[in-house]
């Protein structure tokens, strides 16, 4: 029994291997955080911009927005990453794995957040628009001061959940050689013939994302649709 446990820890929690590859995993953590940050900021900003454009109600533009949004909601993120990374070199563009992953997941987050923001904007009662416009506020002022603040409240829970789900996708970067956590852990594992780095990597993901998930649960109860 003791022997089994010793063999288990030797294989999966090998202190020497872990010590050796800890710096690699940590550098992977940094890359994951950078990637996640870029995805969240650009993806949500682009999604909000599209939703605002859509509220202008210009027919052909709206169709274009809906098609783009539907496209990135339909395609698996990994397919988008692979397409950008392996496809674009054929036309002379060679985005790095990092840039490919960033762009792909930012597009996906843009699509989902546009849909969420749009749902939030349209869910605000028409009377709110009318009251604001009747006091002389312009379309833009009404949108900014009256409609968006109410829409945001409704969008926060679904947006946090979606953002977490998409940001976790940074692990997909491994497939296109991004040196984020999973990439570092995998190569450390094949170099050391030992799975301990993978366990470390898994732990690193939990340390990064578990608090976010717990916070999201709290936000969800706090901002639950009241009515």
């Amino acid at each position, binding site marked *: 029994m003791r022997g089994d446990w010793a063999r288990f820890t030797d294989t999966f929690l090998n202190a020497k291997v872990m010590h050796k590859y800890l710096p690699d995993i940590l550098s992977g953590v940094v890359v994951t955080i950078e990637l996640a940050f870029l995805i969240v900021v650009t993806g949500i900003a682009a999604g909000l911009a599209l939703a605002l454009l859509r509220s202008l109600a210009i027919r052909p533009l709206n169709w274009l927005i809906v098609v783009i949004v539907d496209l990135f909601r339909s395609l698996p993120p990994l397919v988008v990453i692979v397409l950008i990374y392996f496809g674009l070199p054929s036309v002379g563009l060679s985005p790095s794995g990092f840039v490919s992953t960033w762009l792909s997941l930012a597009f996906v987050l843009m699509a989902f957040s546009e849909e969420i923001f749009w749902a939030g904007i349209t869910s605000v009662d028409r009377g709110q628009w009318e009251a604001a416009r009747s006091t002389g506020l312009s379309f833009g002022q009404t949108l900014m001061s009256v409609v968006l603040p109410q829409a945001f409240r409704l969008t926060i829970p679904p947006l946090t959940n979606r953002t977490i789900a998409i940001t976790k996708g940074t692990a997909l970067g491994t*497939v296109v050689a991004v040196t984020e956590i999973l990439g570092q852990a995998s190569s450390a594992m094949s170099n050391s013939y030992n799975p301990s780095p993978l366990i470390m990597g898994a732990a690193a993901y939990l340390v990064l994302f578990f608090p976010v998930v717990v916070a999201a649960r709290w936000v969800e109860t706090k901002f639950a649709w009241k009515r």
Partner: protein
Amino acid sequence: MIQSFFNPEIIVASWPIVRAGLLNTVLLSLLVVPLGLVGGLMLALLASVKHPVVRWPLMAWVDFFRAFPPLVLLILLFAGLPFAGLELGGFVCVAIAFFLNTGAYYGEILRAGIDSVPAGQIEAARSTGLSRLQAIAYVVLPQAVRNVLPDLLSNTLEVVKLTSLGSVVAVPELLYQARQAQSLTYNPTPLVVAAIVYFLMLWPVVRLLSRLENRALAGR
């Protein structure tokens, strides 16, 4: 541009390979969606026992998988377990990973659905002599599922998209096959074809979801 992204000869040549992948993606989805639903139903039924001894570990379980990237879970099973002498193969690993990961998501959705059914429904059912389990199965669950149908559908869409992870552990699904064809032909056309296939397959679902979500908002 057309030559590199939508080369007709390559489409024709690689189509049998891509088609086989499509078939496997459909089969894989038909396996992992019910698997995830079963896992989710188990979690949701457990959660309907409101006792803290059940509640907290359950919440931790669900949050664990919400925090854990599914690809990491898959690699852990596929590349980590062999060190413990357990070589499961890509297909089985995908099945287990999906059971755990998507089960947690389905579980959370179904739990919310069950919570949305008024307590009076169970009381009414119990008052007519149904057992607790019967009351849940015949009275609560049907209403719960209807209340969260858009969320269930949305998650199912994500699960189908997630089957593309199988390509990382050599399960010959659509993306894997397209990449094989790409490396055989030195041309990204098969990848584009795979993307179009995904889009054509899933776009109707996305449209339907948009409708359902808008109707849910309008109904408030």
